[in-house]
């Protein structure tokens, strides 16, 4: 669960670094791709890899479209304008999903089986192992992408300083578009991994993005490893406090802890300052 929050937080932070926009629509990418794979895999009976690939690609395309139509025109506006715009995108996407897929939550069959495996005293569920495996592979892949490929390096350059990057002959607009696509793919992946754990519904986006936002902030906003770790922290603390304290108050406690962290460490746990 924490890893999934981490993924969403990662996409969220990518967009923040590149375009200085708090993307409240990040959770909607998860919601849309969850619904897409539900349609392809369960309703239309496609083989899983095909459905998976189609859902991921389509959410990437969605990310690029969102950037082109809404983020590019408001670039450079004050943060509040950006917040309202992405909230608008979020409201639009989640309510449009309602017409296409209805308001009922859908159950999604478990992909990797949920027969527990015993390791001595520890019981593990294959699905969770798969999730951890996929996310670790992805993190390594992303690292290689950002540090070893030209496109990755260019993306980092844009995130660091848009103006200088454009002076160096980098097409900033295209890069920001690609970053949106990439982070929508990450969000989409999170949505697919999430589908068997919870359920697929048109209104999950906002709750997810708030959790991911908090994860990103705990990790020191703008730091990619921080976002991943922050997401994991949120996921773990949520489950632990539900288990040890009370499930009614788990969110109250999580929010309280977050506010406390921010008061004592105003720019996150992993910030450089």
């Amino acid at each position, binding site marked *: 669960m924490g890893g999934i929050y981490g993924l969403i937080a990662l996409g969220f932070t990518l967009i*923040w670094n590149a375009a200085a926009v*708090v993307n409240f629509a990040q959770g909607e990418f998860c919601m849309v791709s969850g619904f897409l794979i539900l349609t392809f895999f369960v309703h239309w009976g496609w083989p899983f890899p095909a459905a998976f690939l189609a859902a991921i690609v389509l959410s990437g395309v969605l990310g690029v479209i969102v950037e082109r*139509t*809404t983020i590019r*025109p*408001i670039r450079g*506006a004050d*943060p*509040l*304008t950006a*917040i*309202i*715009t992405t*909230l*608008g*995108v*979020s*409201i*639009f*996407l989640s*309510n*449009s999903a*309602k*017409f296409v897929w209805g308001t009922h939550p859908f159950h999604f069959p478990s992909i990797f089986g949920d027969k527990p495996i015993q390791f001595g005293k520890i019981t593990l569920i294959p699905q969770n192992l798969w999730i951890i495996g996929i996310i670790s592979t992805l993190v390594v892949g992303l690292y290689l992408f950002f540090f070893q490929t030209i496109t990755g390096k260019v993306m980092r350059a844009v995130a660091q300083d848009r103006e200088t990057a454009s002076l160096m002959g980098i097409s900033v607009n295209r890069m920001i578009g690609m970053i949106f696509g990439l982070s929508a793919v990450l969000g989409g992946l999170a949505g697919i991994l999430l589908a068997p754990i919870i359920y697929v519904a048109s209104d999950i986006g*906002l709750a997810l993005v*708030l959790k991911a*936002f*908090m994860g990103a*902030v705990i990790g020191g*906003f703008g730091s990619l490893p921080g976002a991943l770790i922050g997401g994991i922290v949120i996921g773990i603390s949520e489950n632990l406090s539900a288990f040890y304290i009370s499930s*009614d*108050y788990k*969110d*109250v406690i999580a*929010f*309280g802890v*977050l*506010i406390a962290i*921010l*008061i004592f460490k*105003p*720019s*996150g746990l992993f910030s450089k300052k």
Partner: protein
Amino acid sequence: MKKILSWFFFLLFLSLPLWLPHYPLHLACTVGIFVILAVSLNIIVGFTGQISLGHAAFFAVGAYTSSLLAMKFGVPFWIGIFAAGIVSFGFGILLGIPTLRVRDIYLSVVTICFGLMVQLALVNLEPITGGARGIYGIPRPSVGDFAFMTPQSFYYIILFFALLTIFSTLRLLRSRFGRAFLSIRENELAAETVGVRTTYYKILAFAISSFYAGLAGSLYAHYVSYINPDAFTFGTSVDVLVMIVIGGLGNVWGSVIGAFVITLLPEYLRFMQQYYRAVFGLGLIFMMVFMRSGIITVFQRVPWARSLSK
């Protein structure tokens, strides 16, 4: 011209209950409550330049304070509403404290968390707040034998408090406090350098804003006479923020217009039914792309209305 126009609007709003049918008048009451909320949020966001995404929390605190006082201790509305304002004021100071250290994006997260915490507390503190079912049968206010039972009479209470909020906020802005708020918005560092106690004024902005939101909450509770946590969600905070942004940030009359538009729009777009929220999202994007500075700027281009929008 300005004087005539102001009197015209004043008399228009004063006479609404005489000729408006029941349902539109109910809408007018709702608009009035949201005018108070929007104008109060504008003090934090528009004038002091701090981002707040948790305004519904203060609305909730006000609503629950005055209805619990009325239900459990029989405190009359006229005292309850000010108690609601003062308790909200206290919560505002509480939320204002993190603003000393936390800025920008981080502040927006703190306010979101605060809003969600208050809402969850309302759901979970069942013995006091009635949990998810909420509180019902909140009494309408009365003076002697006369009870404000109908929307016609209650409308005047709301109108009074809405006007009080608008004009006291306008007055506030022209005072020492208002100038301090604006200086923090424009450049916090510079403000501090010339001797503005920025921490004090930032907390004060949150507290004053919360006071008005508490009044709005109390009015809401006694008007609809039934409250539950669903009325005070993150969505409510977003709606109020949308009101002040599309109306025109940092302009009191802009907030008033925004409150009118956002509250009345779903009524006029009834024919869209379930499509409304999607269209609303789309409209929001269009507003931000093409008319970022708000509806009020349209009025500012018309000469005779310019003086009103100052």
